[in-house]
């Protein structure tokens, strides 16, 4: 049978195409392709390294802030800048609320419609929906009248005949298993989450000036000043505001997201048997507890799990990362058989796919704008599941407690984590534990301010004339979608080389020189497809990774030529 193609994959960020071979109602092979390229690498060349965070943040507006964070960390690492403690805490708070808000948006607005049938919600009994909602949570918006009003609103919308973004979907597909009442409850929370996300992200807007695309990052710290005696700085009023938003964030996650997640998952336990994929998990760890550059003292630990073995966590060495272009629309000067470490990377882009319009890609050869990152020659999965597994296997107490309680509530064993459903559950678990930390991080900031520590920026090396002639560094960050690394080489105060290896490049990677599949490709194998014309099952597994293709398209390599290495870190 010919390949089936899903392009565009919607409810993601960016442009992703999946081609898959289906035999006997199951996927037997799959190819992941990113179909958009901007060449930000060439654009960054010769720019001021202090500006790089603003450029790289625009890699993605959904994972806004994450490339800014990785970028300032890379430059600080290259120059040996230690940021003040307040800047560390403010960055943790910005990243924390980003994680929480982004995961909730993913669950309700990007992923839910693969599991929730909106049309079926019209048949629900509002009284029974109210009973269901009250049986799983004490969230106040749960009356019969409330669900009746939501249902009426959807009814009016459907009867109007203009279905807008909900038209032509897979409603009524046999893969939808939720009872009508659960569907109605989920639709109500879809709408509530729209209001919630807008509100809680104001925490980031206060610390970051705006969202999306915060604008308070500085190499050496942050620009948002602290002074309890000023109206124009973080003061007691700002702290109260942050605390109220953090409380709203946690309340919704505890009372709506987690109960919904458990309720929905209980109807789709068979998805614990699909989508495992690679079985190799990488996390850089994040939320540093001290200010040392690339510190290992982080609230979420760094590590690697190989072949689903939770008995051993391997350390991460950034020098073992390399990128292949064997199946990517790039060329390496020394041929495409060998991978390259990011500091030596090249971005000689050369499209060799079919001339558009086309029906199929030439998947035997080059078929995507993504490179293929590998760790010790192995393909890795990154993201919330990797972070939770590494933390779990490292003995992180809170992660272990919440993971075990979720497994127990669903009545499944730890092996269920290696799956599409496991990815969905891990994202929820992480949201909860990060939301729990937000008030504590605010308290850390308060404690510093109370001691009279208002410092937000270390300006000792702000002036490029104080920099060495050449320097190189890297910065890690755990973005909502997974392990993100930026590598920079600075020469004469300018960017000589800049490379990003990002979460969706790991996950959406094509095959490498050895033909090893990337995470999406591997996880799709074995996925059932009831109707090749309506492949909702492909969406379930691909969406479980929360793809972000603008991030993933290989970015940054300013020179294309190797520099003589300066100092080896």
């Amino acid at each position, binding site marked *: 049978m010919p390949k089936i193609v899903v392009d565009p994959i919607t409810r993601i960020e960016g442009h992703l195409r999946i081609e898959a071979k289906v035999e006997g109602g199951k996927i037997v092979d799959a190819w992941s392709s990113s179909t*958009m390229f901007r060449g930000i690498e060439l654009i960054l060349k010769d720019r001021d390294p202090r500006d790089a965070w603003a450029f790289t943040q*625009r890699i993605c*507006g959904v994972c*806004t802030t994450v490339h800014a964070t990785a970028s300032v960390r890379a430059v600080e690492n290259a120059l040996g800048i230690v940021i003040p403690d307040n800047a560390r805490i403010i960055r943790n708070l910005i990243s924390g609320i980003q994680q929480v808000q982004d995961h909730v948006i993913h669950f309700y*607005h990007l992923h839910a419609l693969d599991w929730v049938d909106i049309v079926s919600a019209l048949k629900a009994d509002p009284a029974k929906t109210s009973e269901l909602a009250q049986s799983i949570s004490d969230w106040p918006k749960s009356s019969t009248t409330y669900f009746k009003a939501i249902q009426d609103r959807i009814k009016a919308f459907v009867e109007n005949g203009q279905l807008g973004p*909900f038209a032509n979907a897979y409603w009524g597909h046999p893969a939808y298993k939720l009872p009508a009442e659960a569907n109605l409850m989920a639709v109500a929370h879809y709408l509530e989450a729209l209001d919630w996300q807008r509100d809680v992200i104001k925490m980031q807007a206060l610390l970051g000036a705006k969202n999306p695309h915060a604008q308070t990052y500085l190499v050496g710290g942050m620009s*948002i*000043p602290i002074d309890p005696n000023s109206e124009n*700085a973080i003061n007691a009023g700002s702290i109260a505001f942050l605390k109220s938003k953090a409380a709203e964030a946690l309340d919704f996650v505890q009372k709506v997201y987690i109960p919904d997640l458990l309720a929905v998952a209980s109807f789709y336990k068979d998805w614990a048997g699909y989508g495992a994929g690679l079985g190799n998990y990488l996390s850089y760890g994040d939320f540093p507890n001290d200010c040392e550059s690339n510190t290992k003292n982080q609230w979420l630990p760094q590590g690697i799990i190989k072949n689903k073995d939770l008995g051993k966590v391997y350390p991460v060495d950034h020098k073992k990362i390399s990128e292949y272009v064997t199946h990517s629309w790039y060329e390496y000067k020394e041929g495409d058989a060998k991978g390259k470490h990011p500091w030596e990377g090249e971005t000689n882009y050369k499209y060799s796919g079919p001339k558009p319009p086309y029906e199929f890609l030439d998947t035997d050869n080059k078929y995507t704008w993504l490179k293929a990152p590998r760790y010790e020659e192995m393909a890795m999965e990154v993201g919330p599941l990797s972070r939770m597994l590494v933390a779990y296997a490292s003995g992180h107490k809170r992660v272990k407690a919440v993971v075990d309680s979720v497994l127990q509530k669903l009545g499944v064993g730890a092996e269920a984590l290696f799956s599409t459903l496991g990815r969905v559950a891990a994202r929820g678990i992480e949201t909860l534990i990060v939301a729990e930390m937000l008030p504590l991080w605010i308290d850390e900031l308060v404690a510093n301010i109370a001691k009279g520590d208002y410092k*937000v920026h270390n300006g000792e090396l702000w002036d490029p004339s104080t920099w060495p002639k050449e320097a190189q560094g890297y910065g890690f960050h755990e973005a909502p979608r997974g392990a993100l690394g930026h590598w920079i080489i600075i020469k004469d105060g300018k960017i000589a080389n800049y490379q990003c290896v990002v979460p969706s490049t790991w996950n959406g990677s094509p095959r490498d020189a050895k033909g090893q599949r990337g995470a999406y490709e591997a996880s799709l194998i074995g996925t059932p497809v009831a109707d090749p014309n309506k492949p909702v099952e492909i969406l379930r597994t691909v969406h479980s990774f929360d793809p972000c293709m603008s991030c993933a398209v290989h970015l940054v390599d300013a020179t294309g030529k190797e520099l003589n290495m300066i100092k080896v870190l």
Partner: protein
Amino acid sequence: MEKDSLLHDLSQKGVSRREFMKFCTAMAAALALPSSFAPQIAEAIEKKKKPTLVWVEYQDCAGNTESLLRATKPTVADLVLDIISVDYHETIMAAAGKQAEKSLFDVINNQKGNYIAVVEGSIPMKDDGVYCTIGGRSATDLVQQVCGNALATIAVGTCACYGGLPAAHPNPTGAVGVKDAVSGIKVVNLPGCPVNVENITATVVHYLTFGALPSTDRLGRPYFAYGERIHDHCERRAHFDAGQFVRQWGDEGHRQGWCLYQMGCKGPETFKNCSVVKYNEGTSWPVQAGHGCIGCASPNFWDTMTPFYRRLPHAPGVSIETTADKIGLGLAAAAAAGVAVHAVASSARKSGHKEE
């Protein structure tokens, strides 16, 4: 009240006439209209059936889509469920693949000349458009069809307006904004990186109210949002006039909210309403959070406004009365001439205050 009207729908879901009028008054303010226009806005919104809108994304980061999700006047749920029919938007729509394409082409074929196209992201013109394809077709090709058949196009974000980041030097993919990709179409540009959602909703409501898109300047930007300089309405303007400048991040002046001009703020040369409407329901904006403006609503700002921390050069003819068009030309001339960057602020000198 007509049964198929928006107000009828709104009242069904518990929105009172009073709340609705409050919204219309807020919209009048957002559009820089006197509040006496509120009834006219209300009447227009009440009567209209939902107009169709398609939102397409090319070389984008979805930052403008995320902005849309932060909408408050009206909220995105109200927009999508009650006010307009968003028939295509890859980031939020339920359908994928073939079914998604059907949604788009149904609009193009059945509502030719009668829908609004919103474009996010630039269009790569080089090499037959291979740098962005959707469903196997190039953005270069798709944008002609989507915008060529639309009643009008709204370009959201600086990339869709002028090429933005992908078009920054050396513009590897030949990226351009919509106006340069499709000739002879009506485009309203809403630049910003990303666009402030208040300016999207105000533009949409302007269209619903007056049946036409707002009038625009030489760069295709609505006057109501891009008619004045950030500097002219900046909350820190008094410090600029008084010569009180931040000199180091975290210094006393920085903590007290003094002027960020010497730290590289581009507010004096950027035309946008940030300092008035702010972001995230008025929570903050860059200058309020202690960082200079980076000029993100200006064409080619990645090249003309960088390095971001370098003080603005002396721009000839800067005064409060200077129009956007003149400043734009002045900047281009300054860039072309490679004017020295250490020049002092003419305005500061003119107002008789010591700059250092």
